């Protein structure tokens, strides 16, 4: 029994590990590529820490323009979708109770229809309207922003409506009746009673609508006209090859998402704590008393940590200069290249010699013994990574003497060292 449960637990831990790797691995890897210097997004081999790609991103006019367009589209989509969603939800829950099922199906349909279809139909529909109104080809009905907002809102409004319906189902229409009974007009009853009740749902719907709009591609690709949004720009970029500035954009988005998720959690926890303590929420949120905020609120602690790390990262980026490290890396690369060229030349020479003396190749493949290149560069071999584990030539001999019965076979330094005999052989001729 005990071993069984242990096995299960290990299995479960393993599964969770796999699961989270699958879930978060790509994000982590991508975030790393945003800070690596190679101009193709790659995390391994790690070269030099750089913030270069954030600058590239900032200077990429098309991406910046795409972000701007996405925000404009998002803003208007939120407004339009929230209003339409709210109207639909009110209609569904209050005005036409008899037609509820039919109405629900109609209003939910846009979610089920593929975005591509919505995009095409938006384009065709408004073009028809345009023709019917006898407007020219460049009228406002062909404006990419307008069409994108209209196209996206068709289905985002349905999402919003679902959010509102869920909230409205918990609304006691008796409250509106009570307000009317006390002399309120219908508008007053809606504004003073029902709208405050819906406030949290309006917030959720707006966030949902914005995110859905921001990430939309399928519908937008047909409607954007002269105003490509971020997703469109990204898709077009990928076609011509990408650089890590896209990773840096993704990194910024991940950071913002984590930040807002944590902030939201902190607020929720605080409200829960307040309710648990029997105090109104206002009493706890008023005044930022540090110890109280953190008490029993792990999310707050993580949030504080997260913000600290982010700020220090930004501060670090202000004075960090990757150029010296890059120069060093460049030289190292050059040296390596030089080394490889030299080795190639040497082998060619050896082969020529072997052909002359007709000596047998007792060491097998000659390539396995990398010869020490002669110091042809002005820096000698100082940048050869192999040098790091090597002892200075003067002290080499005593270390080479076997002090233990095993000799130095376990010395990790040996890995990069050429055996002394071999060295003698290769350097002497």
């Amino acid at each position, binding site marked *: 029994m005990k071993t069984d449960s242990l096995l299960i637990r290990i299995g479960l831990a393993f599964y969770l590990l796999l699961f989270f790797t699958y879930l978060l691995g790509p994000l982590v890897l991508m975030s790393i590529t945003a800070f690596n210097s190679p101009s193709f997004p790659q995390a391994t081999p790690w070269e030099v820490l750089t913030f270069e790609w954030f600058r590239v991103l900032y200077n990429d006019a098309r991406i910046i323009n795409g972000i701007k367009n996405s925000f404009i589209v998002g803003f208007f989509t939120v407004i339009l979708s929230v209003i339409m969603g709210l109207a639909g939800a009110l209609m569904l829950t209050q005005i036409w109770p008899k037609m509820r099922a039919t109405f629900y199906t109609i209003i939910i349909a846009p979610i089920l229809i593929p975005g591509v279809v919505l995009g095409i139909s938006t384009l065709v529909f408004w073009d028809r309207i345009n023709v019917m109104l006898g407007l020219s080809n460049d009228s406002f009905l062909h404006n990419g922003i307008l069409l994108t907002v209209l196209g996206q809102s068709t289905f985002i409004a349905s999402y919003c409506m679902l959010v509102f319906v869920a909230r409205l189902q918990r609304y006691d229409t008796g409250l509106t009746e*009570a*307000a009317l*009974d*006390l*002399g309120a007009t219908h508008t007053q009853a809606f504004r003073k009673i029902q709208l405050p009740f819906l406030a949290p749902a309006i917030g959720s719907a707006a966030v949902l609508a914005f995110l859905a709009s921001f990430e939309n591609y399928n519908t937008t690709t047909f409607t954007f006209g002269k105003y490509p949004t971020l997703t469109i720009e990204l898709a077009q970029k990928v076609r011509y090859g990408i650089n890590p500035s896209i990773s840096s954009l993704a990194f910024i988005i991940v950071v913002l998402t984590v930040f807002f998720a944590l902030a939201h959690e902190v607020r929720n926890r605080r409200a829960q704590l307040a309710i648990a303590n029997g105090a109104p929420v206002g009493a706890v949120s008023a005044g930022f008393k540090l110890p109280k905020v953190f008490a029993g609120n792990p999310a707050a602690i993580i949030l504080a940590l997260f913000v600290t790390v982010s700020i220090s990262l930004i501060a670090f980026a202000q004075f960090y200069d990757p150029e010296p490290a890059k120069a060093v890396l460049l030289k190292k690369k050059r040296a390596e290249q030089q080394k490889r060229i030299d080795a190639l030349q040497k082998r060619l020479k050896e082969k020529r010699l072997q052909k002359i003396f007709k000596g047998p190749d007792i060491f097998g493949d000659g390539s396995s013994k990398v010869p020490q290149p002669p110091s042809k560069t002005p820096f000698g071999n100082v940048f050869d990574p192999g040098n790091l584990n090597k002892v200075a030539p003067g002290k080499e001999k005593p270390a080479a003497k076997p002090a233990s019965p095993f000799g130095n076979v376990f010395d990790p330094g040996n890995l990069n060292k050429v055996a002394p005999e071999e060295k003698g052989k290769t350097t002497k001729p």
Partner: protein
Amino acid sequence: MSEGVGVDLQDVWIKFGEFVAVRQANVNIKGGEFFSFLGPSGCGKTTILRAVSGFLEPSDGKILIGGNDMAGFGPNERPTALIFQNLALFPLMKVWENIAFSLEVKGASASERRKRADELLDMIALTGQGDKLPSELSGGQRQRVAIARALCAEPDVLLLDEPLSALDLKLRQHMRTELREIQKRVGITFIYITHDQGEALTMSDSVAVMKAGIIDQIADGKSIYDDPATAFVASFVGENNVFRGTVKKVTKDMAVISTNRTGDLRARIPASAQTKLSLGDQAMLFIRPEALDVTESKNKSDTRIKAKVHHSEFEGQGYNVFLEGSEGKEIKMSLTNRGETRMYDSGMELTLHYDANQAVALPAGELASE
């Protein structure tokens, strides 16, 4: 009684599709009266109240408030305030904001509203609790806030829909007195709905007893109890022993009913049912448990019933004796505890007496099922 605003229902019908919720209601409620609608759950009481407050229009007939036809006036245009069955306090507003809501929609300033709310909080004995949320109050306190909120609107007619049904017994009894006192103080018309006959009888000037959309009787509490107009009222209000039979002899206000199992019994015909009984009619005779006794009534109209004790319970202020008449007829008798030791063992043969003036004979009809 102060000159309040009366409410009249004239031939009011309310239908939901095919379903008739209220059938030809004719009610005359005088200004400043405490008027109750009493009836079992689902008989249409709330429906009537909603029609008076303007949430639904009658399918037919007229509703007058203060003599004015209310057709076409919405709930916010009528001089009524409704206390909802579930109170419907605004959960996101503080108690004082709830109470002063009717002033807020009229555009009163915050200080003005606060002042009025504090006055009303004093009146309902919740001084200093104005800044709480309704959810932070107890059931009885919420109840009183709902009353204060309705009174703040200064209605001519206050409508109350089973306002005490959610409270426990002790609190309910306390609130009964309190409500009655508030009504006397403010002097406005109260229309009160309940399915609890105790509430209706103790508080009301007049009671309308309803059965499935039909108003059976409108009278003061004592008349309802002593002179029920229909078999339904007799069986719904208070307890009654029912004897079914046919009319054997009838004068203007007395009848002899030949009952199915207990032989001939005599009873009074209440004023509202006179002329409705004639020889040979199906009839019902009602005797209240407290009208039965083991000693002979000094009254000339004394009537006897032979019965055997089945079992008895001691209830403190009295005994309930459950008896079996001829052919297994169940009879209940309530006796007041006067201190003497009286034992009613099972099987004991008794002769029960009652005063025929305290029993009523009515045309046979539907009984309240309880």
